[in-house]
């Protein structure tokens, strides 16, 4: 697909928005998610944005309702979050400006069930008869 050449203004505008969000995170600890899905970005603009933000140190993959890829950019506190599969058609790629992406955090509601399953595992192993010498 061919695109118009002068596409950099959209990328600059997005980078300015990221800068505002990052300042808010640094000064008020308030995270922001910028949803790129609704924006009519061309592939060239998208690539330019990826190139501008660069690659960071952390990459993670989440397998829940399709695959979600989390990549840190070269700008600390700015993360790419992209959804594939069934989730990808509802939400486009996002830029999450946060200390860590919310999806990577263990949901508090699941801690007790995790504890219960570990209890069950250890209880079962204690009930097993000790092997005779």
């Amino acid at each position: 697909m061919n695109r118009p050449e002068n596409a950099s203004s959209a990328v600059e505008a997005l980078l300015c928005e990221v800068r505002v969000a990052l300042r808010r995170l640094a000064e008020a600890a308030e995270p922001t998610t910028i949803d790129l899905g609704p924006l009519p970005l061309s592939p060239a603009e998208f690539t330019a944005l990826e190139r501008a933000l660069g690659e960071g140190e952390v990459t993670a993959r989440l397998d829940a309702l399709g695959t979600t890829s989390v990549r840190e950019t070269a700008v600390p506190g700015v993360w790419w979050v992209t959804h594939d599969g069934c989730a990808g058609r509802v939400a486009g790629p996002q830029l999450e400006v946060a200390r860590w992406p919310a999806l990577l955090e263990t949901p508090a509601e699941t801690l007790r069930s995790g504890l219960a399953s570990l209890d069950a595992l250890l209880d079962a192993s204690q009930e097993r008869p000790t092997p005779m010498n």
Partner: protein
Amino acid sequence: MDKGMSLASRLGEAGISRRAFLKYCGMLAASLGLPTAAGRTLAEALDAAPRQSVIWLSFQECTGCTESLTRAHAPTLESLIFDHVSLDYHHTLQAAAGEAAERARHEAMERHAGEYLVLVDGSIPVRDGGVYSTIAGVTNLQMLQETARDAAALVAIGSCAAFGGLPMADPNPTGAAPVGDLVRGKPLINLPGCPPIPASITGVLAHYLAYGRLPELDHLGRPKAFFGESIHDRCYRRPFYDQGLFARGFDDEGARKGWCLYLLGCKGPTTHNACAVTKWNDGTSFPIEAGHPCLGCSEPRFWDAGGFYRALSAPTGEPAPVAVAGLAVGAVAGAAAGFRHRRTRAAANAARPTVELGRDATGNEEERS
């Protein structure tokens, strides 16, 4: 299925993790135009939401709206919400038929009086006593009135239910009318489209389940989250429009290069919908991306608006070769086009024979043409 179970518990039983649920709520919040933090509150509200009774009435329709929702690709995000409602009546989908089906509708109306949602697809014929479409010997109009009486709210799904659609196109032989013309005094939300985008249906349901009220609507009763912006404003071909680069045929150089389809009749500038964002067929594309102009199917009277392949208006001269001049041409042409298209639709509205009813949905109505 236990009707007292929370949505999260139900999803857990289906093998969907808490994190997946939170992910879905985050995406749902984004699609509803809510701030980032709303994903968590939406999840908590949906967790606590009781199972909602829904009665789905299908009148003069093609079943495309039901297909849009139920035949989405698996595993469907839509099913997360759709499975959480108690679909007490849908005569296309339900196993029961005949008297058993109608009994199910009446039982749901009695058991959940004042609480159930009524989803309607299809327009309602009112000419000649409504004889042109009946179910179980009852006219669509009677069934709508009876079911709407104790409903908490109504949702008109698809352009036929919301605006009359194809059945109401000139000369409107059955006297077709949209839900909003026949039911008054009840909250009503219009979800037009031919068919409507599934995410808009489930988004509205989720919003109602979570917050107990309908989302913010525009002047045509459509949720602003999905109909707040025009196809044109979100179209990836918009930069070509701004530069005055148009396809002039379906096989010319402009078409091959993916230029703007405005001169081929695209109604994107005057059409409000989320196709360019949400897309169709598992996120594959939308009509303009497939090389076809937008038909404007989510706007009132789109069938009578002057022809699908007729441009809203032609620019007065050849587009200027430079972007700045093209932008000016585009802006002027767009404003003029919007005005002319609205005028065409207004003329179509004025020309059609009107069918009026004497009273609102709670009383007996008589047609006066």
